[in-house]
């Protein structure tokens, strides 16, 4: 289960992710991002309620990061230590902006 809460303010998009970002739910986030990334310059993903992220979820984040590299910035906020460990193990902490 994954709940995605979107807030768009001009060219600033805030998304709060709640639950598990895995093989089953990753396509939901991918769809949500594809629909709303047009014209967004500042993407912020709130991960405070994100419990788990699998490789399928990492792929979506990678995709979003690549898109945002072309049109603005992307950052992840409130990343828990469990999620942070996944980012570190996979080397994603090198390419994602985690604040």
């Amino acid at each position, binding site marked *: 289960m994954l709940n995605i809460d979107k807030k768009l303010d001009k060219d600033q998009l805030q998304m709060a992710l709640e639950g598990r970002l895995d093989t089953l739910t990753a396509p939901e986030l991918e769809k949500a991002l594809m629909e709303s990334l047009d014209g967004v310059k500042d993407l912020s993903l709130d991960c405070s309620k994100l419990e788990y992220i699998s490789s399928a979820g990492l792929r979506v984040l990678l995709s979003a990061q690549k898109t945002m590299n072309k049109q603005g910035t992307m950052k992840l906020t409130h990343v828990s230590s469990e999620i942070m460990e996944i980012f570190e*193990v996979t080397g994603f902490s090198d390419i994602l902006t985690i604040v």
Partner: protein
Amino acid sequence: MKRPSIRRASESIALKSLSGIVVLLVVFSAIVCVIGYRGFTRELMAQYAEGAFLTADTAALYVDPDKLDEYEASEGDSEEYRKTWLSLDQLCNSSGATFIYVIRPDRTDYAHITFLFSTVSRQAPYTRYGFGFVRETTNDEYREKYRALYEGNARRELVIRDDGNIETDRHITAMIPLKDENQETQAILCVQRQMSGMAQARGEYIQKVVLVLALLSLVVIFGQGFYLNRMLLVPVKTITDEASRFATENVKRNEKLRETITNRDEIGILAGAIDQMEEQIHNYVTDLTRATAEKERINTEMTMASRIQAHMLPNNFPAFPEHTEFDIYASMDPARGVGGDFYDFFLVDDDHLCLVIADVSGKGIPAALFMMVSKVVLSENALLGKSPAEVLRNTNNAICSNNKEEMFVTVWLGILELSTGILTASNAGHEYPILQREDGTFKIVKDDHGLVVGAMEDVTYKDYELRLAPGSRIFLYTDGVTEASDAEENMFGQDRLLTALNEMPHEDPEHLIGHVKGSIESFVNGAEQFDDVTMLCLEYRGPADMSKE
């Protein structure tokens, strides 16, 4: 398959329908007979009565009411009386009456009658009453009618005795009053007629009616039967035969039922519905057959793909029996037919063994395809003799150049120098390796991680070194191990993995992996797993010359 008895079923419809008609006809005939019988009786009776009254009116012309007292005085012994009697007797024999008589009832209660004239037809088996004969009035009906003729100004009265319970034959008696000059009733003239012919006539009438009705019924039954057969039974039989045939053969008919059965009624609608049903079932079966064949084909291909993938990974153990420096074992269990995990090991040269464990993002066929490419590119680069970091860098660039789907793979790659036990490794986003220390305990090596392979071009990786003491082991795995979950979604985790390894620190690689598998299985307790489970374990036994001792 047992066919239902269609013949009997249709016969039963015909039988039910026809027996209904027969019952209706019988009831109808009975009603017609009763009505006819009654009407016939009434009509016949009226004719008898009319005849009797005609005779009575004629007889009245012969009898002079004003002379009756005279006759009574002479007790019938006069010329005039005898003449009158002869006329009446002649009338009786010529008119068909059985009995003509003139009576005087006693006027107090009409209970007795006195005969003045009495003539009997010669055919009748009766004897006549003599003059002045007195007898009781037959019953109350006669009495009331006598009274009416005397006191009630009745012009004529009729008694019908047709109840069959009488001592004589069935008969009617027509009565008219004989009136004097003062219009006073002096006597009653009665004409009795037998109705013996009537029962016979009635019998014949009933016989004729029954015969005609029976013939009519036969015509109706045959007609209806023929009609039923043509309009109902034959089409219904055609339809049931066809439905039954279709149920057994499941093959469409060239000629549609609607072409043979042209009825515009419910039968026609039924035939049309059966045609349509056959068409739909046929199409459905065809689609289903095609879909099943397709599924079958995909399954076969999946099995083939699964086998090809399994054979891509080195799986002959012991893998290098001639190399006594080490023992190695590995296993890959895909969650589905094909997986995205893989392991690999091969000798770069006589002294260098390359170990690879990797996990492709995603699942199923896409992951399997990506895995194949990754494996080939990795081993090709490794065989060039470069360092692990360089191998990863080259592989990453090669894969990124053609990765529209943005898939990636986590790779841990190490090269072990067999003569020294020095393991040079590099990690591209893969799980931490587990190393057995000299004291025999397994511990996680928090190595330096680079980005997963395939995510971004021109990523650099770092090499690091580990030293394997003789008799120590290195254990590599994918996240399918640590993230194996039980029904409550608790993960197996690193701690349980380390516990399992440390339970059997001196077991050879094959049995060690078997033990970890067993621990995972008892932990998940039958819960379905969604990730591939891959493990690789190497035991370093020391340099060749040392291990030989």
